[in-house]
Each structure stands twice: as structure tokens, then as C-alpha cells.
């Protein structure tokens, strides 16, 4: 069957290439240096090797036969040769016009290669929009999750709010929010196979933080990360590529001497920002007292003397002076974190067999309570060539043991209680030194007491294995088959002993979640590659099937006789046991074709026919495609006059479609839940209304880009894109009389458009001193074109999703400052006025006091208009220094912990230091209203007073390294050694200082990003 397909394929591909070839004109090349690049050990040509003129960013690549030609200026003296898996080599020209070089296999690779999983491309020939990040640049940072390292290195990629706890999830978005209820998270592909990127935690308390699947992967095993952004790249992945794809390529072995390398670093971690500073005991007491005084005089109309009598009676209920003095909860609950990483890797191989292996260990002690993260990883890559066969395998394991402290609004968490509920008036300890409990707030919980009486861990064992075999059938046709197995076993245990608040009732509670995640992916590809003179053609057809099972299991036991050992077997009362299996399956056919004419014109086409078990049999197949091309203009004769400053210029364009699936795996079914119970009686309850017509969400992506090199040193890459998502999967709200809140439907249309700019430059390149810069800036504009059948907006917390507005627009009453005379907050009425004649809608701008008299409006967008990063790297002799800055402009957050900054509504909670600016007497000009107990005039968080700009500039990383001189190394027999100091999130410049400005949307409480000082050493033998 496959053979037949192949026979048919060849003539079709030939025909298409012929057509394309005829339509193009041949253009004379410049006078150049030419030559051949070969492998030192085999003498065989190295195709696609990179040849760069030293001191510039201009370069070419060798062809199939290892041949290259490159135009040079008179003052340029040296060529730099490199290729994946080979050591770099520099060659002085010395008047030669033909330079043949042989490259030695290297342990570590450097070349930027776009690995799509359906063919590998050098960046310079790739027609789509992609950014490749070599992990070399990022290795010095002590972050444990590779995806978290990418922030501000990739234009178009944004990291949304996440906790600063090690092992916690972060939310990634590529080119904006494209879906509503379908997933908006990018697909993560490891060595060509999509891997799971889910929150591994089943336990509600920990899910509030999220256990990141990506943190199971050791960043040191990663060679490079490629971020695919446009349809050319993403349509290959059909269903799951619509939100962009993050491709992770692990390190591969090379030919030659076996190479050992060792890395170690250690860091001290602390909050990067002074997080939500609150008032100390006495200051807070004064504020609350003032609130009651104002309440009894203003609201209850008492005389000041009488009001004082009342306030005196009340104050101790809300802001008592504890016997042992005021408490410092932050000091008690928070501490300095500590991280250390150790890695050992080995690379080597010969002509036919190459391998790479590693072991890694990470240990992190978190900044709050007992939070901790420990990880062991191992990896082995091997490939082997035997006659016409090629074999490859990758095996990776990791074992992570995480203690995540609940965030969100959990009383037994760390950050929420100490920021919001536990005031300095509540004692931490009893007189006898034991933990105090039973407070009027925070449910009576003392997080320190709970932490001491809880045993909680989440252990994840992750195994990923790939085995592939390929065979060259006849010269241009290759067939390969890969099987990937991913198995994740999670064991989450929570034990509340009988002293803890949660365990007391039941004399100890032990809960165990042991879900596992099993994914099988099989991929069979037939590929074809041939050159016809100046025409190069390659293509492939792939069939892929995926079977994913989620096996949930949970048990709970209570009443522990002996709880020194909290094993569930030691408890007497089995309370709950449950388990089930969820299945998600998909199949797809993928066709790819690439054409290259004389390294000047490139054309690519892809086709993907995809089906999923998440849709009903009548609507489950979706067809997606893309077309893209690029044109290297600089080589054309009419560009010659510009050649003294314009070194290279490449235009590229792509257009295509992709799809997305509902988050729910069974969204089309109408269902009665059978899992409920009423006491010992089983129950059935209709809880889902289905929609048999539910189908794919469709994305249409256009990308136009230009890649220019000026003056041989400055490379500028600009991409414009428009990404439309249509037939949005939305849980359409239902009138509640139906018995349901929503039903899945395909409604709506969201558009993301934007521009991404990358500038790479070699500023100075002298013998001993080199300075390079990288700047990336991007802008994304999100707009909801259509949302609901009736055009009505969706309200989501304090956000409004309305047609014509951006997805992340706040919905609040507009604050108009504070009345100078009486301290009342003022608002713009913003009442809708419809002009009877024209039908135009405007809004009244009357200033009113009292939030109830003002209408909420769509107000400011959370998404920054401009984001970016700037890296500068300096190398002087054996010293290297680099710093990385990141910035946001035009974004906003909404402060969701209103009680910290209310105008008196909740006298029980902590109070933000912002309230120092409150109005106190007539004539005070301020933005913070008068503080009156129980007052609601501030309208709490429903006003724009709580919306803050996130403009900021942050020094994300600063690294200083010292490399040992070669002379010394030769003596001890080490090939390289380097020590470095690296600082993470060292400085932040921002206007709004109460929490982290990198956050998005509504912010409650979470551990902010950490400031880390780390010290490390790298040695290779």
C-alpha cells in the first residue's frame, strides 16, 4: 500500500516542480568565494553547513553536495564555517577564491535549525515564522522549567500570571488569545512528538498553583527551543497547533572523542518585588479606629465624643494589641529560598553510532513554609546507521517531588493568609511557644500550625521514550516509523494529622491521588527528496495516530490510630474511593512539500486532515492547509546598486488554516452523571446538554515577513501577522430555566494581529573584544469581532468580552478622583445615551459620588501593547558579561484583593500602605477616599481605581563569567572550564509597586517572581 502511494507521489511531485521551475528566471550570481565543506572523519560533504563572513551576520549555506558560494567585500578577511554537530572553524582568505574546509564533529551544536517534526530547516531557508532560542544563552539562570526561561526572548510569546513557586505552572500564549473555551495553550513537541503539557495536580488545594508538566524536563537536556508561530508551521499539527507550537530539541551526540561535561550552580532566592506591603500593627489600628470614628460621626450622626466612646468599645475586636506585641506574619511564614542544580552529560560516537546521555539533579527550598521541589532526571539519545537503515531512540525519565503551598484563597496557604487575613493584631504563638489558632479571620487557621501538622507531597514520575526506524527505499525516497510512549505516574498525598484544623474532626485524614497519564503516538512518514539542477524538491506524507488515556484514582481514609506513619493502611475508616478512565484519540494525515529554486525562491505547502474523538462522527474530520514562500532578493541583479549597504534581503509570506478542539473531551454528548451518590444510594443526574453539530474551531493565519541584513553586521527581521479564529468554541450561556448554564457551540470570531521585530547585531568584533546585541519587540492587538448569537457580551469576573473590544478588557466603573471637600470617591456616570436621530451611542460624563450611580464600562486592556527584551553580550579575553532586560508598555492589571485597599468595608483584614494617602481633611488632594468603616463608596474592586498600569523595565538576568585560559587547562587535561555569577530579576523599574508588573488581568495573590543570586561552574573533559 505504501509502495503504491510512493510510486504515485514521485511523478506528481516532479510535475509540480517542473511547473514552478519554468516560471522562474535564472539570475547571475555575484563574483564570489566558492568551495566545499566536508566531514574530517568521513570526507563526505556536509549539506546545509553555514558559511558566515566573520564580523557580520551575513552568511550562506552549503547545498546538498556541501558546495557554497559567498560574495565578499575587500575588507573582509575571514570566513567562519559551522554546521550542526560540528566544531566551528575559521579560515582566513588570503586572496583565495576557492576554499575547501573539513569540519570536525563537535560535542555541542550551535546552528539554528528549525525542527518541525515533519522536516528540519535551516532558519535562513524557512518560509514560516519561527524563533529559535539556543539554550546556551539561558543555561546560566537557575530556573527549573525551560518554558519559563523563554520569557522575553521570543517575540510573540507571552507568559501570563504564574506563581513564583518552583514547579508551579505558568500560562503561555503565542500571538495572543485565540480561543475562548478551546485551549489557548501552545502545543509542546519534544524531539518531534507532542508531549503532555497539563497540570499534573489532581488535588484542589494544589491545583490553585498548578503542577507544571514542563518542570519535569531538565533544561540542561535541551539543545534549542523553536517557537512556531504562523500557519506554515502550525497547520502541520492540525488540531493542536492552532495556538502555536513550542518545539524542544534535546542534545544529540557527535562523532569523535567522548566528551564529558559537568555543570553545577547554586542560588539564593527571594521576592523580586516588595509584594503587597501592608500596614504594621499600630498604623493599622489607627486606621481602623479612624474608620469607626468616621462611621459614628458621618453615618450614625454621633458627636465626636460619643463616637470615640463607641470606637473605643470596638477597636479591640478588630485591631487588638496582642499581649506579646504585634505580630510579623511575613517574617514567620516567608524565608529565603535556595536552589541547587547539578548536571553531568556525556556525548560521543563514531561514524555510524552517536550518543548523548545525561543525569541531572535539582533541589529547591521554596520561599514560603515547607514549599520545596526536588528533581532527578536522566536522558539518553542514540542513533545508528546501518546500510540503508537508520535507527534512533530517545529515552528520558524524571522524578520530581514537589511540595506546593496552596495559593488562591486557601486559608492554609501561605501568601493569601499573611497578605489578606492575618493582621499584626493576631498572635502567631501562644505564651507557651505553641502556634496560636482560632482567629476571628482566616477560618481560624494559622498557616504555620497547619503546615507543621500536614504531610503533603506530589511525586511525578515521567517517562518519555521514542524509537524510530527509517529505511531508504530507493535513492530519493525514505520511509520511517516512530513510536512514542509517554507515561506519567503521579502520586499526591495529603495527610492532615489530628492536631491540624482539617484533620481534627476526623482524627487524621489521609488522601491519596494516584492518576496516571499514558500517551501513545505512532507516526509513519514517507519522504522524498531530490535535486534537478537548480531545483530542489522534498516532500512527505505522514500518518499519525494518538491515543491518550487518563486514569484517575483517589482514596481517602480517616481515623488514624497511630499517625507517626501516615500510610493509608494505618487508618481505620475508608471514606471514599473513586476511579475512572478518560480517553482522547486523534488521527491525521499530513502532507508537506518544499521547493527551492537555486536558494533564491522557496515554496512550501502543507495539508493536514485531522480527526478527533472529541467531536461526533458527523463533524469530526477537519481539513487544514497552508502555502508559503520566500524570496532572497539581494542576489537579484536589480539589487546590485544597493549592495554596499544592503547585504541580504529576504521576503516571505504565508497563509493557511488550522483548527482547535474543545477543552472538554465529550462536549457533544448529552449526559446524566452517574458518579454522584446520596448517602449509600447511587444517583443519576442530568448535568450536560450536548450538541451533536459541534465542530472544529478554525484559525486563518497570514504572515508577511522581511529579513534584511545591513552593512553586514545588523540583521533585522520583521513579521506582520493576522490570526483569525472563527467558529469559536464557546460555552453559550443558557437561560437557567433549561436546567443548564451553558451548551457548547461554534460561535464567534476573534482576531489577533501584530508585528514582531528582532534585531541582531555584532557591534564590535575585535581580537579580544566582542559585543553583540539582540533586541526583540512585539505588538499584538486582540479584537473580538463576533462573540455570541445575539451579540451580547460575556462577563467574566471583572472582565468584559464584548464585540469590538479586546479579549482582556476590564469592566469597571470609571473613577474620577476624590472630592476635595468631603473625601468621597467620585465617578463618571457613563450612562448610555442613544441619540434619537442618528442612533449614535454616547456616554454621559457627569461626575457623581457613590459607585451605584455610575455605570460600568469597558475600560483598558490588560494586554500590553508593546513587549520585548534586550540582550547585550560582551566578551573580553576570558571574561564574558551579558545582561538581559525585559519590558512591557501599555498593559494593565486589576487588583482583585480589594479588602487590602477598601475605603472601610472590611475592618478585619490587613490594609495596604496605599491607604496612607487617604483623604483626611477638607482640601486634601488625593486618589484615596476618606476611610469610613463599612463604607461602600469605593465600590470596591468594581471601579477603575483598582486598574493599574504594568509598564515596567526589568533586569531579568545579569551574568558574569570567567573562562580558564587554555594554557592552564592543558596542564590539568580539561578542555574547558568556566565559573559564573548570575542574577535573576535583579532590578525592576515600574510606576505601580504593589505587586509584580509582569502579571496580567485580574490579580489576587500569588508568590511573586523571585530574585535569585546564583553561582555556577561548568567543566568539560
Amino acid at each position: 500500500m505504501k509502495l503504491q502511494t510512493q510510486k504515485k507521489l514521485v511523478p506528481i511531485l516532479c510535475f509540480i516542480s517542473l511547473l514552478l521551475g519554468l516560471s522562474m528566471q535564472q539570475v547571475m550570481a555575484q563574483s564570489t568565494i566558492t568551495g566545499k565543506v566536508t566531514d574530517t572523519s568521513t570526507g563526505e560533504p556536509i549539506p546545509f553547513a553555514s558559511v558566515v563572513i566573520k564580523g557580520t551576520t551575513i552568511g550562506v549555506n552549503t547545498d546538498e553536495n556541501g558546495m557554497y558560494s559567498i560574495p565578499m567585500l575587500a575588507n573582509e578577511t575571514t570566513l567562519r564555517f559551522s554546521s550542526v554537530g560540528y566544531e566551528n572553524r575559521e579560515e582566513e582568505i588570503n586572496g583565495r577564491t576557492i576554499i575547501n574546509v573539513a569540519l570536525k564533529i563537535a560535542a555541542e551544536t550551535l546552528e539554528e535549525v528549525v525542527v518541525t517534526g515533519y522536516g528540519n530547516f535551516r532558519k535562513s531557508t524557512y518560509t514560516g515564522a519561527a524563533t529559535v532560542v539556543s539554550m546556551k544563552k539561558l543555561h546560566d539562570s537557575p530556573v527549573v522549567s525551560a518554558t519559563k526561561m523563554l520569557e522575553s526572548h521570543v517575540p510573540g510569546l507571552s507568559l501570563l500570571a504564574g506563581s513564583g513557586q518552583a514547579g508551579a505552572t505558568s500560562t503561555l500564549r503565542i500571538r495572543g488569545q485565540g480561543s475562548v473555551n478551546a485551549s489557548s495553550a501552545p502545543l509542546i513537541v519534544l524531539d518531534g512528538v507532542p508531549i503532555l503539557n497539563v497540570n499534573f495536580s489532581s488535588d484542589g488545594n494544589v491545583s490553585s498553583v498548578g503542577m507544571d508538566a514542563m518542570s519535569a524536563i531538565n533544561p540542561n537536556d535541551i539543545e534549542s527551543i523553536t517557537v512556531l508561530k504562523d500557519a506554515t508551521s502550525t497547520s502541520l499539527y492540525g488540531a493542536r497547533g492552532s495556538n502555536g507550537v513550542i518545539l524542544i530539541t534535546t542534545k544529540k551526540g557527535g562523532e569523535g572523542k567522548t566528551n564529558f561535561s559537568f555543570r553545577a550552580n547554586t542560588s539564593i532566592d527571594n521576592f523580586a518585588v516588595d509584594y503587597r506591603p501592608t500596614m504594621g500593627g499600630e498604623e493599622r489600628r489607627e486606621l481602623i479606629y479612624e474608620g469607626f470614628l468616621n462611621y459614628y460621626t458621618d453615618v450614625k450622626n454621633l458627636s465626636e465624643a460619643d463616637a470615640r466612646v463607641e470606637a473605643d468599645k470596638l477597636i479591640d475586636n478588630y485591631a487588638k494589641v496582642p499581649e506579646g506585641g504585634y505580630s510579623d506574619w511575613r517574617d514567620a511564614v516567608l524565608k529565603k529560598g535556595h536552589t541547587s542544580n547539578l548536571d553531568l552529560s556525556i556525548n560521543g560516537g563514531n561514524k555510524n553510532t552517536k550518543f548523548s546521555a545525561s543525569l541531572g539533579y535539582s533541589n529547591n527550598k521554596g520561599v514560603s513554609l515547607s514549599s520545596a521541589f526536588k528533581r532527578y532526571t536522566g536522558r539518553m539519545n542514540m542513533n545508528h546507521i546501518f546500510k540503508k537503515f537508520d535507527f534512533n531512540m530517545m529515552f528520558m525519565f524524571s522524578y520530581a517531588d514537589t511540595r506546593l503551598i496552596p495559593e488562591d484563597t486557601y486559608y492554609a496557604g501561605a501568601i493569601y493568609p499573611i497578605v489578606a487575613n492575618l493582621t499584626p493584631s493576631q498572635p502567631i504563638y501562644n505564651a507557651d511557644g505553641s502556634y496560636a489558632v482560632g482567629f476571628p479571620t482566616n477560618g481560624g487557621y494559622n498557616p504555620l500550625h497547619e503546615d507543621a501538622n500536614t504531610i503533603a507531597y506530589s511525586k511525578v514520575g515521567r517517562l518519555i521514550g521514542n524509537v524510530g526506524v527509517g529505511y531508504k527505499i530507493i535513492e530519493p525516497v525514505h520511509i520511517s516509523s516512530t513510536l512514542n510512549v509517554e507515561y506519567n505516574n503521579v502520586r499526591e498525598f495529603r495527610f492532615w494529622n489530628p492536631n491540624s484544623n482539617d484533620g481534627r474532626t476526623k482524627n487524621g485524614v489521609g488522601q491519596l491521588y494516584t492518576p496516571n497519564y499514558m500517551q501513545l503516538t505512532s507516526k509513519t512518514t514517507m519522504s522524498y527528496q531530490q535535486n534537478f539542477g537548480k531545483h530542489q524538491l522534498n516532500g512527505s506524507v505522514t500518518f499519525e495516530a494518538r491515543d491518550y488515556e487518563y486514569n484517575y484514582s483517589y482514596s481517602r481514609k480517616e481515623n488514624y490510630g497511630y499517625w507517626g506513619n501516615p500510610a493509608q493502611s494505618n487508618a481505620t475508616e475508608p471514606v471514599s474511593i473513586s476511579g475512572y478512565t478518560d480517553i482522547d484519540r486523534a488521527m491525521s494525515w499530513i502532507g508537506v512539500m518544499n521547493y527551492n529554486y537555486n536558494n533564491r525562491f522557496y515554496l512550501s505547502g502543507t495539508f493536514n486532515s485531522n480527526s478527533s474523538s472529541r467531536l461526533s462522527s458527523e463533524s469530526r474530520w477537519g481539513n487544514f492547509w497552508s502555502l508559503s514562500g520566500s524570496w532572497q532578493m539581494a542576489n537579484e541583479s536589480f539589487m546590485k546598486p544597493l549592495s554596499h549597504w544592503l547585504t541580504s534581503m529576504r521576503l516571505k509570506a504565508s497563509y493557511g488554516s488550522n483548527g482547535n478542539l474543545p477543552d472538554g473531551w465529550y462536549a457533544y454528548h448529552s449526559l446524566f452523571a452517574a458518579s454522584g451518590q446520596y448517602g449509600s444510594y447511587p444517583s443519576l443526574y442530568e448535568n450536560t446538554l450536548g450538541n451533536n453539530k459541534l465542530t472544529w474551531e478554525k484559525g486563518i493565519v497570514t504572515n508577511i515577513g522581511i529579513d534584511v541584513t545591513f552593512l553586514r553586521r545588523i540583521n533585522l527581521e520583521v513579521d506582520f501577522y493576522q490570526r483569525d479564529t472563527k467558529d469559536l468554541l464557546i460555552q453559550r450561556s443558557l437561560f437557567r430555566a433549561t436546567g443548564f448554564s451553558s451548551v457548547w457551540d461554534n460561535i464567534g470570531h476573534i482576531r489577533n494581529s501584530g508585528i514582531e521585530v528582532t534585531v541582531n547585531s555584532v557591534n564590535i568584533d575585535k581580537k579580544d573584544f566582542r559585543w553583540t546585541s539582540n533586541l526583540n519587540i512585539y505588538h499584538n492587538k486582540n479584537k473580538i469581532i463576533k462573540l455570541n448569537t445575539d451579540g451580547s457580551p460575556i462577563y467574566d469576573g471583572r472582565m468584559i468580552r464584548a464585540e469590538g473590544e479586546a479579549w482582556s478588557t476590564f469592566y469597571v466603573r470609571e473613577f474620577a478622583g476624590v472630592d476635595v471637600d468631603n473625601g468621597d470617591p467620585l465617578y463618571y456616570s457613563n450612562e448610555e445615551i442613544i441619540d434619537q436621530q442618528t442612533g449614535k451611542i454616547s456616554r454621559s460624563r457627569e461626575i457623581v459620588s457613590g459607585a451605584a450611580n455610575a455605570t460600568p464600562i469597558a475600560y483598558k486592556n490588560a494586554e500590553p501593547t508593546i513587549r520585548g527584551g534586550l540582550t547585550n553580550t560582551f566578551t573580553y579575553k576570558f571574561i564574558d558579561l551579558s545582561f538581559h532586560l525585559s519590558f512591557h508598555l501599555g498593559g494593565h492589571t486589576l487588583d482583585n484583593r480589594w479588602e487590602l485597599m477598601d475605603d472601610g468595608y472590611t475592618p478585619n483584614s490587613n490594609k495596604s500602605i496605599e491607604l496612607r494617602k487617604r483623604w483626611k481633611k477638607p482640601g486634601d488632594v488625593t486618589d484615596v477616599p476618606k476611610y469610613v468603616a463599612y463604607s461602600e463608596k469605593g465600590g470596591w474592586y468594581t471601579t477603575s481605581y483598582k486598574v493599574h498600569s504594568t509598564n515596567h523595565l526589568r533586569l531579568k538576568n545579569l551574568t558574569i563569567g570567567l573562562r580558564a585560559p587554555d594554557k592552564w587547562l592543558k596542564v590539568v587535561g580539561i578542555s574547558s572550564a568556566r565559573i559564573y555569577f548570575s542574577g535573576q530579576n535583579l532590578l525592576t523599574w515600574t510606576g505601580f509597586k504593589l505587586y509584580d508588573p509582569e502579571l496580567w488581568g485580574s490579580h489576587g495573590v500569588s508568590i511573586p517572581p523571585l530574585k535569585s543570586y546564583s553561582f555556577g561552574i561548568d567543566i568539560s573533559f
Partner: protein
Amino acid sequence: MKKIIILLCIITALLFTACSDFLDTLPPTSISSEVAIENLDDAESVIHGIYNDMQSSAYYGHELIIYGDIRADDIQTYNENNGWYNFYVFNHKRGPGYDLWATPMRISRNASRIIEAIDNGKITDGTDTERNNVKGHAIALRALAHFDQARIYGYPYAKDQGKLWGAIIIDHVLEANELPVRNTVEESFTFITQELERAIPLMSDQKHPYNTLNSYGARALLARVYLYWDKNDKAYEIAGTLIEELKSSSYRLFTRDEYLEAFAYNSEGTNFNPESLLEIFNTPSDNPARNSLGFNYQTAGYYSYCVTKDFHDLIRTDPDDIRNGMVKVATVAQNERPFLIKYPGSADNVAAFDNNYPLIRLSEVYLIAAEAAIKSSNASLKTKGLEYLNAIVQRANPNKSVSNAEYTLDRVLEERRKELVGEGHRFFDLLRNGKKFQRTGGYHLPNATGFDISWDYDFSILGVPYNEFILNPMMKQLGQQNPGYTYE
């Protein structure tokens, strides 16, 4: 070499051919709606599904019961840090969202599923009597759901004689796009009573181990509905007949000696048995956990609610009243307060999640009869009415009784307060009898003290969630938001 090519081809071919049903998956813990109710067991499982929904903290497991207490003068929040504080101070703008609005309609849908399955002959096993019993049970639960929506979102009948908006009548399984509108309070009560009267003859009088609704319970509920509807003669007739009839059954009032034990913690959960006509049954493994009403009352739990000084003083006026045992003074977080121990933990310092909640007790039926008799224009009912009242009064303290001269509506309401405190009645008692919500001094939080609100105050009922008017514009056109509330 060739072998491998062939092998690859076989693998590929296998993948293609083995896939005809590869993509058909079914949810792991659910059943497709079309085949869910096909026999009597299924139908009974749906009945238990309805109770499971009623048991949740969003309904009788917490919210609906506390709603009937926290807004009146018996129970208050311990401090301001509580989700129900806004209800306590009549500030509903940040209420419980959809819980109380949508749960009754979800119950109605599932009940309608059972009724339609039986009416359409989908259930073929069992006898007529068995099928009728399940059907009657479903009709009665649907009526209860409508009653709850009518009394929370509709003004009491006394306001405009029931012409204002009440419940949305849902008497069948709605399609996704069906948009019924609100009916008046009058129409709601008519529907509820007709449905209960239709259900009662279908239902069995057997006691369910969890005290779910049987024909006696449905009759007690019907008496309660008539009392709310201000049809006192009807209410008296049903309650009185039921009391007399039950005298020769296993149902009876607790004795004075049993009283405290009846409300004590019992993990078996059958303490209310002789009196219980309807209750929410929680077990150690099936309960609303920390969100349960009990846990929120318990001093070893969240101590969200305590008893007002007003109520504490009332019950203390007679130290021999057995119901003094429902209140216990405790010091929590430096404050001394009286707490209700009707839903206690298993010990003073050990909280519990699995208390049962009585929804209709025989005592209430006595008090319904007593109240209906005094309100009735028919003076001849009063003798018997007083007898019923005294049954409750003397059970609490055999040395006390109410004389004919003392027998007034206020005296009955006072007795209801003492007897039914914490069971979700007081607020509705004041509301339907046109009384005021008054709070003075005591431990009332500063922002709630000095309350003096008339029963027909706009915010004494809840507003319909705004979004419903967007989804059902006809409701907006008919002006079906409650007075004082806005449409957005």
C-alpha cells in the same frame, strides 16, 4: 530488508483498518441522556440525584437554610468575614449568584425527566403502584423547587395579593432554546398546590431510611404552602388532619427526654426519625464538607454564625425550657458568644460535616395548624389550634402552657422561633406575616445594629440575576425584575 518494508506496511495498514471505531469514545462516569431512564431503578436513581443536588451547600446543605435565618433576628454572622454577611445586612448586590435561582430549575428538569419517562411508557418494569410512587415523588419535589423559588424571588402573597412575579413554572423538560417567563406569585402557588394534590394520592406512605418525601411529607409541605399563600383554612385542614392521622402511626413528636438527644451528633444520622417528614441526610462519606451548614455553626468549625443576644435572652426567660440546650455559650477567638448547637460537632473541639438537616418536622405541622387556626376567620378552629400549640409548649416545659387569652399570632410566631431556630424559618415567618426585621444591640455587628426594616422593603426578596434578562429578553420586556433591582 524487504521484510522490514513489508512489516512497516503491515503496521500502517493495521492502523488504518483498525480505526473504524477508534475515535468513538464515551465519557467515563456518565450515561447518554437518551438511555438514562429505562427502568424503575434508573428513575429512583434520578430521585436520589435530586436529593444529592438538594444536599449540596448551594441549597439545603447550607445556603437555603441559612438564608431563612441570617436575614432575621435569631442568627447573625460572627463577624464581617463571611460570605453571608451581605445577606445579614441586606446588601444583596454581592449575593450567592445563581445558586438559589438556578438549583430549583435544575431540580425541576430532572423531576420532569422522571415524569416524562413514566408518562411516555419508557419504564416497563415494576407495578403501577411502584411507578406511581416514583412519579408522585418527582412531582412533589418539583413542587417543592417551585415553592422555594417563589418564596425567595417572589414577594409574600400579602403584597398585591400575589400579582407580583413569582416562580418560573417548569412542567416539562425544556429544549435548549425554550424561554419561559416568570409567573405571578398567585399562579405559582396555584401550580404548586395543584401539583402536590396530584402527587399525594400517587405516593406511598412508607418511610424511606433517609426520610425522603412520602405522602405524609408531601401533605405537610402542602399545609406549609397554603399557610404561605394565606389560605389558612386550607392550611389548618391539611395540617390538622395529618396530625390526627399520624397519631396512629410511627410518627410522633419527640418527648422532652428525647429532645436533646435528637439534635445531638450521631454519625448514624437517624435521630430525627419519629418527627422527620423530610430531611437532608448526610453521611461521613457524603456531605458538603467545610461548606456544610453544620461546620459553619460549629465552634470547632468555621464559627461563621452565632445566636443573637435577642434570641438568647428569649430562650433564657424560661430556664426550664428544654430548648435552652440548643444554645451554648463559648469563647471563640477572644469573643464570648452564644452558639447554636442544633448541628453540633462530634465533641466540643471536634467539628463534623455530616449533620442531618430537618426540612419538615412534625413539630412544624403542629405550629402550622396553630398559626392557621389563629389567623383563620373561623373562630371554631382555635380550640384545637391552641391544643396543637400547647403540645409544643408543654413538650419543652411541662409546667408551662399558653392560655386562650395568650393565644395570639405573635405567641405562635414566638413559639416557632424557639422550636424551629436555625431550621431556616424565621425570616419567612416575618416576611409572610407582614412583620418588621428588627435588630438592636447585643452582638450585632455595628453595620447591622439598629435595623428596622419593613417586610415589604424592596430588598427583602432577591433580584433575578442580570444575565437572565440578556438571555431571555421577553422577561425584561415584561418588566420581570423585582422592584429595586436593576437589569444590569
